[in-house]
Each structure stands twice: as C-alpha cells, then as structure tokens.
C-alpha cells in the first residue's frame, strides 16, 4: 500500500464527496427555506445528465452540454415547483414524501419513454482528458481534478450568495421567519421558486459532471439522492457548511473504506474471508458513520434544530 495510492484514493474520495455536496446543498437549502423533503431531487440530477448527454451529442460541445444541464434542470425544477411542489408546503411530511415519490415515478418512466432503457454516454471533453502530474509525481486524471475545483468554486459561490447578496439575506430570513419577510414585502412565492430552481440547477450540474465518468441512465439519481440524505443527516439539516463537511466525510469514508477495509481485515483473517467481509463492511461503512453521528449528535454536526 503505497503513499501514491493513498493520495489517489483520497483525491477520489474528495471528488466523490464534492459531487455529493452539490446534491446535498440543494436539498438542504430547499429543506431549510421551505421545510420540504424532496425525494425528486435525484430526478433533477438525472435530467441534468440527460440534457448534457443529448446536447453534447448533438452539438459536439461539452460546455454547451453543461449549460443545457443547468438550464434544463433549473427549468424542470421551476416548473415542478409551480405545478406541484408549492401545493405541498403546508402539508405534512408524509404527503411530501408521497407526492415527490410520485414525481420520481413520472420522471423516471418519462425519461425511459423518451430516451429508452439503454444508457447514454457523455464523453470527457478533449481539453480535460488525460492525466495531469501533481507535485510529488502523482498522475491523476485532469477531469476528476477539475470536478473538485468546480465543486469548491460552487461552494464558495454559494457562501458568497447566501452571506453577501440581497437574495441571500432573503433566503436566510426565509429560514427563520417566513411570515415576517412576507409582511416586509418580499414575494415569498417567487423566492421559493428561485430557491427550488437553484437547488435543481446544482443537482443538474452534478448529474452532468458525474455523467461523464459514469453512464447516463434512468434511475441514476436515486442512489445519489439517498447518499445526499446521509450527508444531510451527518451535517445537519439546513446548514450548507454541514453539507460540505458531511459530503467530504461520506465521500472519503466510502472510497477509502472500499480499499482499506479488506486490506486491514487481511491482518486477522485469510484473504478470501477478509475480502468478502471487508467489501460487505465497506458497503455499510457510511451508514455506520451516520449511526455514530446520530448517537453522539442527533441533530447532526452543524444542525441548529432537529
């Protein structure tokens, strides 16, 4: 087990975590401001990936594909908010779960209807393909490194948006007291649509970016959605900072656990037993992490309220 491998795996975990952050940030924002649990967030991730794959295939430009993913997911998000989601704010969580579950069924089958069951492929663009040499002589795929940088830039942008702009003030106020900011003349309905579309755009962006390293297919969003839930539970609902730290923790645990748990167990068991137990344990590692956080801090690492 060399140092280079370790660093590579840490970077992989970081990249995975950062992409989870893009999903979790939107979810936590939507929950924080509107009090809505949105299961259909994974569908917006899928829509982003399909928009990117379709536009990139038609135009040959990855950048156009990314723009299409952002626009498509934001548009789908705004539309869903206007037609369905805004009727759910006053309802209880059970109704929200069911209605957004129904949206998943509609989006998944609709996408299957349009694009068929076979996965689409989105290629890494020419100028981002190939490895790059990091200090210390480590070769690492340039594209994955770019994902980390984009994710961190988005995190910075979100931070600036929420702490420095007028919209950010309204979002924070909306989290604290929605009646009061309504009384102060802020168009709440509009604010909610904007926040929802923003969350959707983040999900779409992450779907498109990940779509280039995995295949673009129906149902790709839900596993990521559930991991994003784990991230939010660990980080604390409504906290963007919690989402970032939770996402990186989950990304690192999942990636490093998959590599090192079987290796570590080989010290105690014979290789085949170690591999099978290790891979089972690794697939459960992030949930064990979640359970541990829950026992120590039921409201999550940065959660203000339960």
């Amino acid at each position, binding site marked *: 087990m060399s140092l280079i491998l370790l660093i590579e795996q840490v970077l992989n975990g970081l990249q995975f975590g950062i992409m989870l952050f893009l999903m979790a940030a939107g979810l936590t924002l939507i*929950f924080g401001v509107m009090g809505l*649990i949105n299961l259909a967030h994974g569908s917006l991730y899928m829509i982003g990936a399909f928009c990117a794959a379709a536009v990139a295939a038609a135009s040959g430009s990855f950048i156009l594909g990314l723009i299409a993913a952002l626009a498509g997911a934001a548009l789908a998000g705004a539309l869903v908010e206007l037609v*369905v989601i805004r*009727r*759910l704010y006053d*309802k209880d*969580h*059970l*109704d929200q*779960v*069911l*209605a957004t*579950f*129904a*949206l*998943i*069924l*509609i989006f*998944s*089958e*609709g996408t*299957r*209807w349009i694009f068929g069951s076979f996965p689409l492929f989105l290629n890494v663009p020419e100028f981002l393909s190939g490895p790059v040499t990091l200090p210390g002589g480590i070769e690492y795929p340039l594209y994955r490194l770019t994902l980390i940088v984009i994710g961190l830039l988005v995190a910075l942008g979100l931070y600036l948006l929420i702490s420095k702009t007028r919209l950010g003030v309204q979002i924070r106020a909306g989290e604290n007291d929605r009646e009061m900011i309504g009384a102060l003349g802020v168009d709440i309905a509009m604010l909610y649509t904007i926040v929802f579309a923003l969350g959707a755009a983040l999900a779409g962006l992450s779907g498109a970016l990940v779509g280039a390293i995995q295949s673009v297919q129906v149902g790709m969003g*839900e*596993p990521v959605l*559930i991991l994003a*839930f*784990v991230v*939010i*539970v660990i980080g604390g*609902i409504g906290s963007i900072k919690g989402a970032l730290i939770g996402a990186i923790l989950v990304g690192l645990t999942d990636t490093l656990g998959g590599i090192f748990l079987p290796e570590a167990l080989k010290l105690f068991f014979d290789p085949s037993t170690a591999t*099978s137990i290790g*891979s*089972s344990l690794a*697939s*459960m590692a992030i*949930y064990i992490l*979640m*359970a541990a956080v*829950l*026992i120590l801090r*039921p*409201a999550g690492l940065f959660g203000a309220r*339960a």
Partner: protein
Amino acid sequence: MIRETYVNALTLLLLVAIPLWAVFMDEPFTITLMTRAAIFAIAAIGLNIALGIGGLVSLGHAVFFGIGGYAMGILAHHAQTYTPLAEWPFLIDGTKSMPLIWLVAIACSALAALVIGALSLRTTGVYFIMITLAFGQMFFFFAISWAEYGGEDGLSIYIRNGFPGLNTLAPIQFYGLCFVLLCLVLLFAWKLSKSPFGLALNAARQAPMRVETVGLDPKRVKLVAFVISGVITGLAGALFADLNRFVSPTMFSWQTSGEIMIFIILGGVGRLFGPVVGALAFVALEHWLGGLSDYWHIYLGLLLLVIVLFGRGGLIGMVSGREAVHD
C-alpha cells in the same frame, strides 16, 4: 356514500369470492395475483401501525420485508443443498417448514426493528424519514455484496416450503394460508388500535408532551410500535419470497419501501382496511395498466399525485366520504 364498515365487508367478500371464482373458472394466475395482493396487504398493515397510528413515516420498511424474504431464502437454501446453516456452537440445519421459517423471520425482523428504531427514534420528522431510508439502503448494499447467498442475483428455491396438512404447491391452498394470516393480522391490528397501548400510541403521535405528563414515555411507545410494525412486514416478506420461490436484493430496495407506503395511501392512511384496499388496487393497476403500456408507472405516479393533492383519505375516504376516524 357508503359507510366504511360496508366497504370493509365488501373487501373481505372480494378476497374470498375472487379466488373461489378463479378456482371454478380454472384461472390459477388470478389466484396468484390475489395471493400477491394479500401478502402486500399484510406488509402494509404492518407499516400502517407505525405510520397510521404512530405517525412514524418510515421509508425503510423494505428492510423488514427483505429480512423476512432472506430468512426464508437462507433456511430453504440450506435445506435444499443439505448443508448446515452453522456447525458451531451447535449444529443448525436449514428447514423447509413454513411455521419455523416464519418464526425466524419474525425474530430477525424484530431484532432489526429494535436496533433501527432505537437509533432512528432519536430524531423526528424529516430526519426520521431520511434515516430509515438510509438504513434501508444499507441492507440493500449488504445483500448485494453477500456473495454467499447469491449477491446481486438472489436465491432461488426449487420447491415451495411446506405447511403441515396443506399442499402449498396448489395455488388456492397457499392463497388460503395467506388469507388466514391476513385475517389474523387484521384482527390483531384492530385489537391493537382499541387497546390501551394503541390509544397511547395514538396520543404519542398527536401530543407527545401530554403523554409524557401522564407518565408514559412516548419514545418507548413508538419504539414498541415500530418493532411490532417491522415484525408484521417481515412475516409478509417471508410469504412473498415463498410465493415467488425467489429472493433478491430488490426486496430491500427503497422502491419496495415506497410501494408499501403507496398501498396505504391508495387505500387510506390510518384506516384498518386501508392497506388491504390499497394493495388490491395496486395489484389490479399493475396488472391492467402494465398490460396497456410498458410505462404504467407514469399513470401510477399521476394517480398518486392526484390522491395526495386532492383526495385525502385514499380510496376508502373517497367512497365513504369521511375522514379517518382518528383524525
């Protein structure tokens, strides 16, 4: 408008009449569909105890459904390959006997529900939903990576397990068994909702603080309800695996959790017969819409949206025109 009692009686009548008609007309497939509906109904009655009375929105009930399924799969797998399940500390053999399998399924799901419930109930509301969903996913991935018992491919059982005095291979006899269990579970759920425990659970949902002031621990009441709920769903899982003679990680998937919840919503939350009506409606929709279009989930999704947004009280509520009694 028809009174809810009549709707319930009519449902029971259908559950008896349709399979008998199918035997008479020699349509074994209809009996299989009805068996499927009866088993789904049992699973949903289990969830309805936690969800309808206790207000615990668990999106992880597939865990118990899957544990029941794998209890059957693993025991029968060892019995049909004549390999012992464990040799240490004492010899445990597999079995092909349904009552034994049910006992194991019940014990395992009770244990899982106790651990998951104790952890998840540390939180409430939307956290609870996310955590139960995450635990469901944990079991799903565990089942996939469990190569010894088929991993992603699951386990097939050659011959349906036996029940003393019955030929379970005859569809109508297996249906009869499931129907009797369904009736027992219904009776249990009805008794439970009227019992002091049921009342305490109802109160723990509506006003936990008041429950505490009369000296009851609302968390404990909810945990017990969660365990009972998981046990019933686990039993349904064992039956479902026996119906298909096959278990796979799909039983653990989050879609399964969602579907169990759909049964309740279609029929009506917190109503005794809600899960039964919902499961019947779901199987009928799956059969008819599935025959019309490969993309029938779109229509299911639309129907679900309409029911959630406009039709509180599910199908029973629409027919009987009343909110659930306890609301």
